[in-house]
């Protein structure tokens, strides 16, 4: 099964997408991707395109491989000794699994926000500045500017501007997650991966993050893994439904939720399993 909706199926039905009428281009193309944990196959011949400045959601039951697929995109799975990848992922025209690719540079361009907020045990300021410091930026004014800009983008600046030097661990759960978003956008990535970013948050904090995502997609491409179908329906432009390591259906979000092509998708969406 291959899905290449960018060319075959322009998303004219999607209300969110139609608000941005510029022609969508693929920033990431995944082709025939297989992923193995030891002998066990976790992802099987995945092929899909991620469109620039759109929010793409991966949904599916637990263990279907949606987080694994996300972690393939910034090669965070490399850390697992027994993991093995076949196929290719093209990001901005280059196969990221090519041996010549600088993995550090790749991760700087593809940021990530995790399921559980994971601020470093440092001050709020140092959390946001961390990526820049790693990149060798030492100039204080540059750091100050980027920290402020990133925190503003993450809609956190007003809440923390007076206590930048306090520990990030003193923030609330929702604030911590927005701090993690600020930390990710401080290094100016092109893509932001979000792995169930709201699963540990209350509805109000979730609403704020979702609002933020809609704001951020003007500048960034966002891929979100979520187990909440409502969330996928609310924020995403495109949705991929994964089941047992395969992409069952990938289309404009509204179409997936209203008139899915596959029976399996319909069963999942209507809550018959999962």
């Amino acid at each position, binding site marked *: 099964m291959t899905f290449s909706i960018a060319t075959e199926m322009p998303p004219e039905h999607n209300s969110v997408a139609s608000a941005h009428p510029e022609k969508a281009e693929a920033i990431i193309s995944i082709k025939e991707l297989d992923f193995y944990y030891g002998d066990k196959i976790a992802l099987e011949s995945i092929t899909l395109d991620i469109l620039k400045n759109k929010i793409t959601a991966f949904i599916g039951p637990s263990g279907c491989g949606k987080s694994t697929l996300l972690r393939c995109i*910034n090669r*965070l799975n490399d*850390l697992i*000794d027994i993991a093995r990848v076949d196929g290719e992922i093209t990001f901005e025209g280059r196969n990221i699994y090519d041996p010549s690719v600088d993995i*550090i*540079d790749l*991760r*700087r361009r593809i*940021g*990530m926000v*995790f*399921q*559980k907020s*994971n*601020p*470093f*045990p*440092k001050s709020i300021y140092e959390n946001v500045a*961390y*990526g820049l*410091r*790693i*990149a060798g930026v030492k100039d204080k004014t540059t750091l100050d500017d980027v920290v402020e800009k990133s925190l503003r983008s993450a809609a956190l600046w007003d809440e923390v501007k007076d206590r930048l030097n306090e*520990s990030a*661990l003193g923030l609330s759960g929702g604030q911590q997650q927005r701090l*993690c978003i600020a*930390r*990710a956008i401080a*290094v100016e990535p092109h893509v932001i991966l979000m792995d169930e970013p709201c699963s540990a948050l209350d509805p109000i904090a979730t609403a704020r993050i979702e609002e933020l995502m809609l704001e951020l997609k003007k500048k960034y491409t966002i891929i979100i893994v979520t187990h909440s179908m409502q969330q996928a329906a609310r924020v995403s432009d495109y949705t991929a439904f994964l089941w047992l390591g395969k992409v069952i259906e990938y289309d404009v979000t509204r179409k997936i939720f209203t008139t899915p092509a596959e029976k399996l998708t319909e069963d999942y969406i209507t809550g018959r399993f999962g």
Partner: protein
Amino acid sequence: MKKTFFTSGTPFIWLTGLAAALGLLMIVGLLLLILVNGLGIFWPQNLQQFTLKDGSVVLGEVWEKETHDNYDTGREETRYRIKTANRDFYGLDFRWLKEDDISERQMPPTAWVLERQAWGQFFGFIIRLSNNGVALASDELNVAAQLPEWHEKMLAAADEIHQLEKGSIGSISMQIENMRLEKRKVILRRDTTTASGRAALRRVDEELASLERQYQELEKELMQRITDSRAITITLRTIDGQEKELPLIDVVRMWQPNRMSAPEKAGLYAARVWEFLSGEPREANMEGGVFPAIFGTVLMVILMSIAAVPIGVLTAVYLREYAKQGPVVRAVRIAVNNMAGVPSIVYGIFGLGFFVYTVGGTIDQLFYSEALPSPTFGTGGILWASLTLALLTLPVVVVATEEGLAAVPRSIRDGSLALGATKFETLWRIILPSTSPAILTGTILAIARAAGEVAPLMVTGVVKLAPSLPLDSTFPYLHLERKFMHLGFHIYDVGFQSPNVEAALPIVYATTLLLVLIILTLNLTAILLRNRLYARFSVTKI
């Protein structure tokens, strides 16, 4: 019903509480025992004079009262343990007196307690003060009036003599020793046949001769001063009339307890505690202070930490972060854990064989060959003792650090890597700071273990009496090859190896108290530091 009571857990809660209370009771009891006995000994007690029914008199401090049934008569009787001091007169410091034998008790106001350089304390009276045999004062009242001034002079003189011995004479004898080594070096190099070699030898010889002359002059001056200072004497009389003349300079401290008010006694108490903490030991360590032992203990613990903590942390980082997890790493981990259970004397003997004889011996042959056959590093010393203890405490640091590393959640590591950090950067900037409280916990445990160890030290460098501290003002300041004193060994030595165990007992209690306090202080410092780090770096919210 019965089953419900048992399964309700109530008896189990009682059992756990009981066990905790038992442990607590033993610890508190031990601390109280040490505290009471260790703090009490410096308090100047009153001197009591007992007149016995057979007409003899005894002067001393009451140390203990005991009531028991007489074995023969079956009657209950009371007896007192009296410290009579005056070891040079009686041979013993203590004697027992039965309540029934005592006919009269008094507190003679003019009785003195003298702390002397030799023979321990003296209890009795001072009846004469003389200069070269000519009496300056010959009744107790006059003596008491003039004594403080003269004693002060004598203390000053003793200080000067000490300065002369340790300062000028000490430095000249060290120079002579260095010149001798220089001479041996020239001879060992076999260049006495060349002109320059002979010139060097001649120069050394001249230098040596001049130093010897200076030495002899200084020694003459020293002898003169000692003779002069010993001219001032006091005549002592015990309660039973025996007399003895003693140079005043041999008296360290003197007081009349029965005349002293409570504040005066408190002042004296403070002075004696201070002397114990800051002074050097006298009389086979049974009197005086324990400063060299405190110094040795603390320095050794510091050196041990400097050696054990970095190596332990690096080992743990390799095992947990870099090594491929598998049977080999598991085996290494088990081996490290088991090393913590090896008896410490085994480490001591390993230290003796490896550090002292092998490493130290090699260093001597390479760098100190002119001093052979007398060893420099090839004998026990503070460096080797510290390294042996570092080996002993290494497993503790490794295990604690590994646990700390394991506790840093995966999500934090991923967060750092996802921002483009390398594994090393993640380790250095995020994981190690988060692990620092655990590393300090390991250090605390290591310190607690190392400060209390005695057995391995006895074979790797601890001595009963070290002539000089391992840290002083002569180059290179820190003398790692020197032997040192240690509080734990001091307790063993004074308590079990001294000629007069009964008299030494108080000092054992005081030293024990001190050792416990030092370990407590070291631990508290580390705990405070750890709590501050927790507040800064803790990954898990509290």
